[in-house]
Structures are given as C-alpha cells and as structure tokens.
C-alpha cells in the first residue's frame, strides 16, 4: 500500500532531514487534485471565519442586534439578516464556525486517541486481548451511535465539554479497527522483530516503531471523523440538545424551523455553512488520500 512512503518514515535517523522534502512531495501530489484544492480553500475560509469572529462580528452573537426577521441584504448592520429574536445571522455563522471547528478537532482527537490505543493493543498482542477488545468494539458498533450520543448527553448533561467527549466516545470504533488491521499486518515485519531482539519494550515498539507506519490511513480517515463530528454536534443542537450558551449552526437551523414558511434564510444560511464545511473535509480527505497513497487506483 504505502511502501515507498513508510520506508522513508521508518528510517529513524534521517527522518528529520527528509521531513520538509517529504511534505513538499505530499503537497505537490495534493495540489494535483483540483477538488482537494477547493476543499482546502473552503477550509481556510472556515478557519478564518472562526479566527476573525470577534473582529468582524464583535460581541455576543446571541444578543439582540437588529429588528427581528430582517431579510439578508437589507440592513448594512445585518448583512445576512436576523432571526426571530433579532440575533444577527452573520454573527451566528462566524461564531458558529468556531464551535464547529473546536468540536470537530477535539472530538476527532479524542476518538482517534481511543481508537489508536485500543486498535494498537488489540492488533499488537492479538489472542485473548484482541478478542476481548474486539467484542467491546463490536458492542459499541452495534449500538446506533446517535442513540448512544443522546443517552450520554441525557445522563451527563449537554455542556460543550460533555458533548465533545460524548462524540469522541461514540466514534472511535472505525479508527480502532483500522489501526488494528494495520498493526496485524505490520507486527510480523522484520523491523519489528529487529526492535524486539534489541530489547525494545512493547510500549516503545507500539508507539515508536509500528504506529508511525500505521498512521497514514488513519490521518485520511480523521477527515471523515471530523466531518461526522460536526454533523453530530449540529444534529444535537438542531434537536435543541446542544449547549445553549454557544452559537451553533445546528441550533440556528433548529430555531429557524419555526419560521421556515416566512423566513427560510434563517435555516438555509447556516445549513449551507454546514454543507460547505463538511464538503471541505471530504474533498481534503480525498486529496490527502491521493497524496499519501499515490499508487492506489482512483
């Protein structure tokens, strides 16, 4: 699969010197995919919106900022209009980008971390450890993740920290299976035997020797986890089960639902924002996949 890349990465010493060259190669391959570039541009726009939220639309995005249900492009103060409580939609979009990104990144880190540890231990040790961990993984895969998410939020409360942790808890299974599969194929390779014969500890073999080689597909998959995390948070917020103290795109759509007949823009504008953000992750994920697995057929 990724033999040319991994052989470079696993040479432990010259690795650091090769890093810039390698990332340059990856960037060249990524750049070749025009859709991926579009994804990158969209992603940069979302990041800029999140970073500049307090500059472009200062103040609390949940405050009354104009006459209720103003249509877009009518008032200069509310270029994207206002909702039924007079909250500025543009402020909601900018501050919502922040929440979406934070939730996407942190929940993905949590789920990948859990997935890597469980998948690595299961794949490396095999046998009974693997059997037990895989049963747990299957149990988590069997429960519909959104139902589990609702349950966790119902029990532990819907503060933003709890939501992020809960999303991480319901989405680690796929990365775990991926890491496990990689570990199972890598653990019998010669470089692992060599490390073991040198007396390297299991923990060091797992994290220093095998993990760097097992990571590329997981990094690509992280973009998918990020997209689904954002979708999950917005779905929760849409149902009114999110953290009410933060502006969230899902919540804006949910609130706009009651004025859908008269003021469609209240839900359509944040809906398009989610759509484009998720799209940017999928497009970038594909570009990353092409860059990391250049031999794979399209």
């Amino acid at each position, binding site marked *: 699969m990724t033999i040319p890349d991994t052989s470079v990465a696993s040479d432990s010493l010259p690795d650091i010197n090769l890093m810039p060259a390698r990332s340059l190669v990856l960037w060249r391959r990524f750049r070749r995919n025009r859709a991926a570039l579009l994804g990158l541009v969209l992603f940069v726009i979302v990041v800029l919106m999140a970073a500049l939220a307090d500059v472009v639309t200062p103040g609390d995005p949940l405050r009354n900022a104009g006459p209720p249900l103003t249509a877009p492009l009518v008032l200069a103060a509310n270029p994207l209009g206002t909702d039924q409580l007079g909250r500025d939609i543009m402020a909601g979009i900018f501050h919502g980008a922040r929440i979406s990104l934070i939730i996407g990144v942190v929940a993905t880190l949590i789920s990948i971390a859990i997935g890597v540890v469980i998948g690595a231990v299961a794949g490396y040790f095999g046998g009974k450890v693997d059997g037990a961990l895989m049963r747990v993984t299957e149990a988590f895969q069997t*429960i519909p993740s959104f*139902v589990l998410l609702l*349950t*966790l939020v119902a029990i532990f409360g819907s503060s933003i920290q709890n939501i992020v942790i809960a999303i991480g808890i319901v989405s680690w299974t796929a990365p775990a299976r991926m890491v496990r599969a990689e570990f199972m194929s890598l653990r019998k390779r010669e470089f692992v035997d060599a490390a073991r014969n040198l007396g390297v500890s299991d923990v060091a073999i797992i994290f220093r020797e095998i993990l760097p080689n097992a990571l590329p597909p997981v990094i690509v998959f992280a973009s998918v986890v990020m997209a689904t995390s954002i979708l999950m948070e*917005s779905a929760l917020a849409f149902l009114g089960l999110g953290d009410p103290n933060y502006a969230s795109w899902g919540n804006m759509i949910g609130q706009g639902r009651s004025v859908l007949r008269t003021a469609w823009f209240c*839900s359509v504008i944040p809906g398009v924002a*989610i*759509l484009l953000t*998720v799209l940017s992750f*999928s497009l970038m994920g594909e570009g990353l996949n092409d860059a990391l697995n250049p031999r794979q057929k399209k």
Partner: protein
Amino acid sequence: MSLPVPPLLTYTVRRVVQAIPIIILIMVGSFLLIKLAPGDTVDALVGDMGGADPAFVARLRAEYGLDESVMVQLWRYMLKLAQFDFGWSYVYEQPVITVLMSRLGNTMLLMVSSLMVAFTFGVTLGAIAAKRAYSWTDNMISTLGLVFYAMPSFFLSLLLILIFSVKLGWLPVGGIRTIGAFKTGWADVADVARHLVMPTAALSLIYLAFYMRLMRTSVLEVMDLDFVRTARAKGAGGARLMFHHVMRNALLPVVTLLGLQFSTVLGGSVIIETIFSLPGIGQLAYTSVVKRDLNTLMGIIAISSIIVVIVNVVTDLVYAWLDPRIELK
C-alpha cells in the same frame, strides 16, 4: 456442497451464538450508565410526590431492590432483560416493551424503504458512473455524491418540507397517516407511502452517496480483473457482462457496508422521525431524552442492538450467497 442446508444452519447458529457476548456487554454497559446517572427511580418518584420522610424512602428503595449491592442489582436487571422486561415507562404509564413494540413497525418501515432506495439508486448510479468513468456523466454523478454526502439530513428535511409541503403543497409535513381520515386497504397504504416519501428521501440520501461511491470504485476494480477479460473474450458483452459478471462481484463490498451501516441508519432515524413527527423508535428516543425517561432509553438501546445483530447475521448470509468462494464454517 452436496448438502447445502446444514452448513447454512450451523453457520447461522454460530453467528447468533457469537453475538450473545456482545449483547450481554451492551446490557451491562447500559446498566452501568443508569447507575452513573444522577438520581434513581426512587428519587424520581419522591420528586414527583413532592418529598417524603427518610423511612418511607428507605422502604421504597427496599421495595425496588435498590438497597441491594450493585452486583445483585445487575443480576436482576439481566434476568429481567432476558425476559424482554425493560421496566416501566413513567412517561407513557406503560411497560417499556409495549411502548417499543407499538412503534417498532413504523421505524422498520422507514429503515427498509430508506435502505432500499439508497441501495437501488446508489448501486445503479455507481455502476453507470464506473461504466462511463471520467466522462461528463461520471463527474456529474460523483460531484452530486459529494454534495449528498455533506448534506446534513435535518437540513435536507427542512429543504424538502420547504419545497414540497410549504411551496408546492404536494406532500404532508409530518405524521404517518392523515389524521382523522381512517382510510382502509390500499387507500391506507397509499396514504402511509405519501407520508414516507420525504422522510425516506432525507434519510437515504447520505447512504445513497456512500453506496454510489463504493459501487463506482468496486465496479472499476472488478472490470480490470482477469475473469471479466475472459468473459469478454468469450463474447459476453453489454448487459450480460455488466449484470452477470461485473455487478454481482462488485456488489460484495456494498453489501458489507449496508450491514455495517445499519446501526448508523437507525441512529439517523432519531432526527428524521423527530422532524417528520413519525411515531417510531427514533422519535421515542428523542422524547425519552427530553423527558429523562431512562428506562425507555435503555429499552431502545437494547432493542436496536438486537435488530442490528440480526441484520448483521442476515448480511453475512447474503454475502455468502453472493460470493460462493466464502465457506460457511
């Protein structure tokens, strides 16, 4: 393979037996979750009564078995679950299993229709895209797939409602039947079908995108294989080559994904059923969370896990049927 039935039977039994530890794990997990939740049944009861003296509370705890050790409680909980006794729903004033069963049919209807739509259209569009790979049609289908994939189901639902209910007035906004119409026979079926059009479309679109992309890759891969070249050399072409030789093999990963994703689709029904006020398990999950009806919530987890396990076993059987190379051992 002189006796085709026994291996199939033993295989099915084995798969079911393998699923038992997973179900038990889920049950233990849901019990622990209830224990972690702040407040127990007695707290809720006493809260409803507006307070009670400590001796009475203690007696209630003893009556509900809440004074026993956690292990004893777990054992009792498991025994009850084994008899499909999920406890009492304090919101619906009915046993949880009665509430669940009255709503299961609607959810299953939504699941089956959505997955059928997603599968049929996904596989067809994917195969067309692969057949004309890198053409204008292919690009069109692939782009559409990316947009479908990124579209949140609740947003799509609102758009559909806005267009087909509010603007055009073609389809009902929600519910499973027209209230007060009391239609029978085929009129009733048509009525339910009309109510299911938008929920099905909203729930299936993202999976349609998944199956389409997977089918496209899969057909492209299979078309390069030797046996397809052989078939072509022997004169098979056009429809026969596509359906008999390519599609059947290219379907394998799609079937796997269909089984794997069933639990996700079930989770997605929470949002769709809530938006379209379809009285199913998903909507029940939402109201249980809002009303903090934990018994019902745990019942939903249990019943949906059992359904997912059954679907997974069926998927494996379909897979084995599609791919004779797989030995049923």
